């Protein structure tokens, strides 16, 4: 059985940049891209603030006919997967030993809403491809066709923890030797105005308080937070055994030392101190670490009042008061299904750069005693990082990442 799993390739897109280089530059400079959202189908008598991807640049490897048929979520998946694929040199791996796990469920709601609206009074002309595109697993179809993946491919859903769940599932596929390489993809969650309305109504999405200053609306862990701000993003992480990476002579970004998952036994969006603490403790224990070894935490940190407070209490309960802390969502918004994967990418890029990105709008932290990276980047070589993702329905996940030797 393979000993450890490592990350050998990554691809990312968010409103602040496409590709790791642009994304990292934007993170370290504290760049944001929040505006009143413009994408067709996102607003209805509303002015929801969010961060939208302006343009996706495709390589010539992706055929026009593929792009013509691909949804926004699929297009984002194809470009991040290609970036990760090339970096990890997966064309050198037996395709039957490569897998793909897509994190996210009900991810293409805006696209579906647009189709429903368009064909409402002429349903007899509905495009036959709707039979394929309405299912999230359509992303598996597009991606495996594009890259010739023959091992395994399926979707996993865990609300806002989906991106980390995909990584856990991919690592499990590798450590159980189902495949040598498994790509975890945090799918772009394409919200329609209906989901925005629901998320606002349930009290999760931020209010109109900053309607005239959209750049101030996204403020995880700040006293003036009042909900998450959406941000489109998508990320792919190549997970494989250390042995597999060594066969191609690839230096990994990091080692995935372990993971933890715990449920609250609660259908609601409410966070739970106990569940979050348990997930962290499980992950650290499985990794063979002590909590004192963790020197950086990439928290879930959405900007929700209850969620931010519960998370900081969980970090305190675990004694993680000295570890550096910032909030990637303050810069890119909350990608929901993509968040866990994209934030792992942000963590590993910071590990690589020995630098921590600033946290936007963290003017008055709700707990100022913690070791925040505030408005300026900080030079720090991460040794042991903890990444956290929580989801509605009481889902708590934690991953432990170590600088490779």
């Amino acid at each position, binding site marked *: 059985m393979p000993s450890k799993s490592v990350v050998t390739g990554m691809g990312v897109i968010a409103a602040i940049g496409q590709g790791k280089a642009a994304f990292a530059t934007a993170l370290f400079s504290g760049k944001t891209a929040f505006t009143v959202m413009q994408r067709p189908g996102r607003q209805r008598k509303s002015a929801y603030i969010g961060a939208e991807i302006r343009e996706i640049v495709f390589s010539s490897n992706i055929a*026009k006919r593929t792009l013509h048929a691909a949804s926004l979520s699929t297009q984002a998946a194809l470009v991040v997967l290609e970036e990760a694929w090339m970096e990890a040199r997966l064309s050198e791996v037996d395709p039957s030993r490569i897998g793909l796990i897509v994190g996210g469920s009900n991810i293409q709601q805006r696209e579906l809403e647009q189709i429903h609206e368009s064909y409402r009074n002429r349903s007899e*002309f509905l*495009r*036959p491809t709707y039979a*394929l595109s309405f299912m999230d697993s359509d992303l598996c179809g597009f991606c495996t066709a594009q890259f010739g993946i023959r091992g395994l491919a399926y979707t996993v859903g865990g609300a806002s923890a989906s991106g980390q769940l995909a990584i856990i599932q991919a690592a499990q596929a590798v450590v159980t030797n189902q495949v040598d390489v498994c790509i975890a993809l945090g799918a772009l969650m394409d919200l329609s105005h209906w989901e925005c309305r629901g998320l606002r109504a349930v009290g999760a999405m931020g209010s109109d308080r900053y309607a005239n200053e959209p750049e101030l609306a996204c403020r995880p862990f700040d006293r003036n937070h009042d909900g998450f701000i959406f941000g489109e993003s998508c990320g792919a992480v190549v997970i494989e055994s250390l042995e597999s990476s060594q066969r191609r002579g690839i230096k990994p970004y990091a080692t995935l030392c372990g993971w933890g998952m715990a449920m609250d036994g609660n259908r609601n969006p409410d966070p739970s101190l106990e569940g979050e603490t348990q997930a962290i403790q499980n992950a650290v224990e499985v990794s063979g670490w002590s909590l004192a070894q963790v020197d950086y935490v990439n928290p879930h940190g959405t900007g929700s009042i209850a969620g931010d407070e519960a998370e900081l209490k969980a970090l305190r309960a675990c004694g993680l008061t000295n570890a550096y802390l910032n909030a990637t969502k303050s810069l890119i918004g909350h990608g929901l299904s993509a968040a866990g994967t994209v934030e792992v990418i942000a963590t590993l890029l910071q590990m690589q750069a020995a630098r921590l990105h600033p946290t936007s709008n963290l003017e008055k932290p709700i707990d100022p005693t913690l070791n925040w990276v505030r408005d300026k980047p900080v030079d720090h070589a991460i040794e042991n990082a903890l990444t956290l993702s929580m989801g509605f329905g009481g889902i708590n996940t934690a991953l432990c990442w170590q600088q490779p030797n």
Partner: protein
Amino acid sequence: MTRMELLDLIAQHTREVLPDLEAHHFIASDRLVDLGANSVDRAEITMLVQESLGLSVSRVELFGPKNIGELADLFLQKLNAV
């Protein structure tokens, strides 16, 4: 609508689904399958034509035509029957 106009419409929607055929000169004897259209592509192309014409044709009838000329003839016949 003439047969030629129908052929142009079929060509237009075929190019929409298969953009790589942008430069292809369509003729009546062209078979969609030979142009690289798989079964889903063919269903998509014929549906787009129906949508443009505002005319609904059953899937069973669409199995009949062997090339785009015969497909144009089928649509022409349906249009004239309306």
